[in-house]
């Protein structure tokens, strides 16, 4: 598709405008709550929704992540001189450093992110947000802060669980099928362990959690128009979150491994 120079300029300035608006909006989001109990209630509801609500899908995905990683590495290493227990080590580090945080959060951006965008966007369109504003509620704070904080708290735990299940998935895919022995896999898991990698995993989880809740909340909060626009905002929320997560992944990798 041909994009003229002017269109490009417009596109870039529109992105910059959104970025500016988003940053300025953050000041309204992180404000002292009108009522701690109401915010806490909302926080707990979100913990449950995001945490427990996403557990089955995360578990399912993680099992396969581990299983596929093991099988493919086994395939690559077959016939080489690399000892089989290395596969345990590779699965562990791949999972912890990259697969668990990134995959989990990409999936959560789809599930939690679109949910947040349509919930908040729906409230905007049905004038619920106006109604709350008129009552004197700081809606940016009440509707967004508990969601982001809950995500910052629970998503790192989900990522942890994901890493664990993924490693178990690798076990299930290899040991019962006879690719190598349980002892070899476990030896691999216990070899060359660098705690710093776990720290990297948590950094990623926290940053991604912020992205996949804040970006959709922004898309929902400022939605205009009707149900078609709401659908579009929800899609945009997921796409932008995904892109930003991948970008952040790259930047974190650069910075933390430097």
């Amino acid at each position: 598709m041909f994009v003229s120079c002017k269109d490009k300029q417009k596109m870039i300035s529109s992105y910059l405008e959104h970025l500016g608006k988003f940053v300025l909006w953050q000041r309204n989001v992180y404000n002292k709550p009108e009522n701690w109990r109401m915010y806490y209630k909302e926080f707990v509801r979100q913990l449950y929704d995001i945490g427990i609500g996403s557990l089955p899908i995360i578990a399912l995905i993680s099992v396969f992540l581990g299983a596929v990683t093991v099988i493919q590495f086994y395939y690559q290493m077959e016939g080489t001189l690399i000892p089989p227990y290395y596969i345990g080590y590779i699965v562990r580090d791949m999972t912890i450093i990259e697969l668990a945080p990134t995959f989990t959060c990409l999936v959560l951006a789809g599930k939690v992110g679109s949910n947040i965008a349509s919930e908040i966007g729906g409230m905007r369109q049905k004038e619920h947000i106006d109604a709350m504003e008129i009552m004197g509620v700081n809606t940016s704070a009440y509707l967004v802060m508990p969601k982001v904080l809950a995500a910052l708290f629970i998503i790192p735990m989900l990522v942890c669980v994901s890493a664990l299940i993924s490693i178990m998935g690798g076990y299930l895919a290899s040991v019962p099928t006879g690719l190598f022995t349980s002892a070899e896999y476990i030896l691999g898991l216990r070899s060359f362990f660098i705690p710093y990698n776990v720290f990297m995993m948590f950094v990623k989880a926290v940053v991604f959690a912020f992205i996949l809740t804040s970006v959709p909340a922004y898309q929902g909060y400022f939605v205009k128009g009707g149900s078609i626009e709401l659908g579009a905002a929800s899609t945009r929320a997921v796409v932008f979150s995904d892109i930003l997560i991948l970008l952040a992944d790259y930047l974190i990798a650069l910075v933390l491994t430097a």
Partner: protein
Amino acid sequence: MIRIQDIRKSFGDVEVLKGINFEFEAGKNNLIIGKSGAGKTVLLKILIGLFEPTNGSVWYDQQQLGGLNKDQLKALRMQIGMLFQGNALFDSMNVEENIRFPMDMFTAMTAKEKQDRVDLCLERVSLEGSNLKYPSEISGGMQKRVGIARAIVLQPKYLFCDEPNSGLDPKTAITIDELISTITVDNNITTVINTHDMNSVMEIGDNICLLNQGKLAWKGGKEEVIDSENEVLQDFIFASPFLKKLKARALGG
């Protein structure tokens, strides 16, 4: 009392409100009337600060709306009750939770006090016993009444209603009008009501502001409506040929 001075509002190139001056009085039902699209909702949203006027000022007694800091604005908003054109009831909460929401958010009342207040408000709008129903499970008229109950739960000084009886049968509409009117007089509230319902105008129109093409076309009380010579008003009130005929006959004989 709420006073507006030279309010103008444009959306893009279109000027919807073209310089409106009016005074909404305390303890009275102040009506904003006008054809669909005349700018009633826009004016109401400017009054409560959801829209910023392009020009002009809004005064709540001695306070100017645009000149308030965050805390003052919040304090003012806690004295405002609003019934939206589409009710804006929170659909994930039941009737009781909806009405309790402002109290939960802003007061340190005990559970018992809140419950009593909820029951009292529901009683006022004749919805005793509907506490646990969800907005989707009750009729439009009932939703309106829940909306009113929620708007008055913190005993506001200012009450705004955007078309409180649109979409209701004439009987229910009048009940709602009477309800709002009683609440207004009993508590000396400054009530502003948007409507294009003729019955409302004649029933509760203490102080009427007629909008036409973005301008104030007429103001006065319900007693003055019939005898007014104002063409826009007459055209608005006696819109149907039937009413026109009725009026002609009344004047003739």
